């Protein structure tokens, strides 16, 4: 069988020559891609002045482009995307049905009103479209505009939509965008780029978009590209090692926007343990946040803290809640949650060890690799919480908010809370420790905020912009160093 080709797309042109082989890593597929040494010089924008054509576009023109592109990305008709999806089935950690789910939403991704909302809520369309004037108390008028920048995006490979999200962020901020494709999905962003080339090869947005694959850490490529005269921002998704590696290229004129890896938790109040009905509702909501998309997302819940309140039989009731949550996960529709393709080996060894322990833990399910609930009998999460995956969660009975705070750190993203009233006790404390988003339990996977708004409190779109001030003073202002 011929190895599949991950094409390079540079500013309206598709490249599939000078192919070299990249052996699959860590279960990935072996593929061919153009030799990056042959095209690295063409990746960056030749001159910063070439940003000007993006400023010939009005915001409505950007919406027109994206809306039309969205229609063409429909997985039912777009052959490039179908091919990318086909190649993803084998390498994705999730089963086929969930890969399909990932590709199915592409046609609605760029809906006009959604894109407009994202631009408005993340940056403000007035700042994108022109100079916004403020008057300072000393009479100076200051005009501010958000300009786009030239960025390299090192995107993650755990979701097919990340290339589209990157394009969206770049287009609305009028930024120049180079995507470094990940080795575990070098195809989907390229399929996006090819669709753009077919639709409008000479459009400024197409001309400011490139996708390429090179081996992460290939110094011959990165030392050339990661220079302030080529790019101003590196937007990197990734873990400790990947981010550490990029930092060596940082210098004045080249900054890093780090989209850190995250995990998420849930917090449930004692009401959930009161009676049958309350328990059922909490279990239903937990099942969605834990089991949805097979727990593959950073917003998927992995540890649930349950406040036992005045219940003396707290551990027994939490075990009952865990059983119901397990049952509810097993009953989720298969297009939303299904038997994992292969259960993580390291995790299994941890779970199996606890299964033989009656004193500190109770394990529900997991013998078929379908997912499991682990109930801690002490107020602490399991020591291997970082490995929880494949529909496996840890329920921890706790007596106080303090016990929950111990489980929150810089990696904690979403906290799903139930009932809603419990948030009042958490919302002004948890940010000290590292959480970035509170949701009503059952809504952790709602992706609006991730795509449009703060993205883990990181505000990537605002930071992709260069915020330029234009100050208008009458005469020489008193506070000037000259006075």
């Amino acid at each position: 069988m011929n190895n599949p080709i991950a094409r390079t797309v540079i500013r309206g042109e598709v490249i599939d020559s000078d192919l070299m082989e990249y052996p699959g890593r860590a279960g990935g597929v072996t593929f061919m891609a153009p030799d990056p040494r042959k095209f690295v010089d063409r990746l960056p924008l030749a001159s910063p002045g070439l940003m000007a054509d993006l400023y010939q576009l009005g915001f409505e023109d950007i919406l027109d482009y994206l809306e039309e592109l969205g229609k063409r990305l429909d997985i039912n008709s777009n052959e490039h995307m179908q091919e990318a999806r086909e190649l993803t089935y084998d390498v994705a950690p999730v089963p086929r049905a969930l890969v399909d789910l990932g590709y199915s939403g592409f046609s609605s991704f760029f809906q006009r009103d959604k894109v407009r909302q994202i631009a408005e809520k993340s940056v403000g369309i007035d700042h994108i479209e022109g100079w916004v004037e403020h008057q300072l108390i000393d009479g100076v008028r200051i005009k501010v505009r958000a300009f786009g920048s030239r960025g390299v995006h090192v995107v993650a490979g755990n979701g097919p939509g990340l290339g589209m999200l990157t394009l969206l962020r770049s287009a609305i901020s009028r930024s120049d965008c180079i995507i470094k494709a990940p080795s575990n999905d070098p195809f989907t962003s390229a399929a996006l780029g090819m669709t753009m080339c077919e639709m409008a090869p000479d459009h400024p947005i197409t001309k400011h978009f490139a996708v390429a694959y090179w081996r992460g850490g290939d110094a011959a490529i990165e030392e050339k590209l990661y220079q302030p005269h080529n790019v101003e921002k590196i937007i990197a998704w990734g873990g400790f090692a990947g981010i550490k590696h990029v930092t060596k290229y940082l210098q004045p004129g080249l900054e890093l926007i780090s989209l850190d890896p995250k995990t998420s938790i849930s917090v449930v109040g004692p009401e959930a343990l009161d009676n049958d009905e309350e328990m059922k509702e909490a279990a239903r909501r937990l099942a969605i946040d834990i089991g949805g998309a097979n727990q593959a997302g950073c917003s998927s819940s992995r540890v649930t803290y349950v406040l036992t309140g005045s219940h003396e039989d707290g551990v027994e009731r939490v075990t009952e809640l865990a059983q119901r949550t397990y049952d509810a996960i097993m009953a989720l529709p298969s297009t939303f949650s299904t038997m994992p393709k292969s259960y993580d080996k390291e995790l299994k060894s941890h779970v199996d060890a606890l299964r033989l322990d009656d004193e500190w833990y109770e394990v529900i399910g997991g013998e078929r690799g379908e997912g499991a609930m682990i109930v801690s009998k002490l107020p602490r999460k399991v020591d291997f919480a970082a490995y929880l995956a494949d529909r496996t969660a840890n329920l921890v009975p706790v007596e106080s908010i303090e016990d929950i705070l111990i489980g929150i750190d810089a990696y904690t993203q979403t906290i799903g809370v139930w009932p809603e009233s419990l948030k009042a006790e958490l919302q002004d404390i948890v940010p000290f420790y590292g959480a970035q988003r509170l949701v009503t339990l059952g809504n952790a996977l709602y992706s609006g905020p991730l795509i449009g708004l703060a993205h883990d409190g990181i505000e990537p779109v605002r930071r992709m912009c260069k915020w330029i001030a234009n100050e208008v003073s009458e005469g020489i202002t008193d506070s000037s160093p000259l006075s």
Partner: protein
Amino acid sequence: MVTVDNLLAGSATVEESADALLNDPLTFFDMSLTKMQSVPRDLLTEVQTAALSKRFEQQKDRIPTLSKLAQRQGITEVSEIDDVIPLMFEHTMYKSYPTYLLEMGQFDKLTTWLNRLTPHDLSGVDASGCESIDSWLDLLSSETELDPITSSGTTGTMSFTPRDRSDWRTFILGGFRVQLLQRFGEPPSDADLNEPIHVCWPSHPDGHTPFFRAPHYFREYMALDSDEHFHPMFDTRGDTDVMFLAARLRAAQARGNSQVDVPQRLLDRREELATMEAERPARAEAWADILVSKLRGKRAFLMSPAQLIYDVANSAQSAGKKCDFAEDSYISVGLGGKGFDMPDGWEKVVEDFLNFGREFGYFYGFSEQTGVSVRCEHGRCHLPPWLIPLILDPETSELLPRTGKHVGRAAFFDLAINGVWGGLITGDKVEIDWGGCPCGRTTVHISDDIKRFSVEQGGTDKISCTATPEAHDDAMDFLTSF
């Protein structure tokens, strides 16, 4: 007493030999490397299978965790090697207690937990008064047959494997003294068996991590309890509580978490620890002097992680010092495996300093079991005859065929170990060869290129033997610098 000679001569049955092997493998093999490595493969497999069956029968009602696992699996007897696969323990079993207990110093509860992993009865041990990990392990080893070892991981956890004293004997006397000092094909000399050997150890002489506890037994089985023959670099014990702090600090750093409580006991010792740190270079120099002058022409046993011996060699070399050990010494400088960033040309510096005419030795072993697999002149690590290799498919965890060559996850059944259940699945990726080896040893052999699966998948979860001193140092820096 039945020995392997009786088996080969037909004067002992397979069953009798299996009993003798379980009872004391070193006596069964007559303290001889050559005898260990010369039993025809089929016959050895027969004895191993019989011994495995007996071992399960012995332990199944004595190790509570094993009883529970066997019950869950519906297994009541082991008659073939394959039968034991569902009963293998993952390495995670030995850290399956809540770390919370350790942080809170609830050593009585930890004793209860440990009691389920060993056939030794710990119910009479009252650990409620223990205030540190070291004091708890001291208590266990003074009041019971156990002498457990710990290891810490970068996720902030610590494992406890309840080895007993007989296991240490098998490991150090059988694994190291017999296998490393003798030559295959020759009977052991009187000196090999009965004379003290100079032990050169580049760290603390005692403690409860494998790296700190091994020298305690080197002193017993290599130096034959002679202080004249025991040369550790330091004279104080390595501190297990500092190692646990090291593990938690690393985990906290990686997670952006500042919530690490330092036990008062360690805070109280800051001055003492700082003094020890300050004395380190002088102690390293004094140690190098012993190696160079006092051990000239002597039979020495030197084992070191590359980094430690390199540091010593580097400064000794600039002072023009060189060792000159006897030709029948044993030296290994790669302890703890590869994967450490070493300066270019470090081997030459170490070789020049040690000035040893023979090749440095290499072996594969780990602290949870007694088996040490020593590399032969053809670069293959031969398993000791009391170790049954069970190499598993890395994806499906099914047993790979016991013929030909395979790469997989290493699991072993250690027939010799008494303090814990012998079945263990490691995190190591090995290549095994069931065919013969040109060196003439009859046992199964594995490649000397051993990797950890977790490292391949992009990270390491274990502070290895090599990183132990480094992690210890990190924690010491932390303790003495705020």
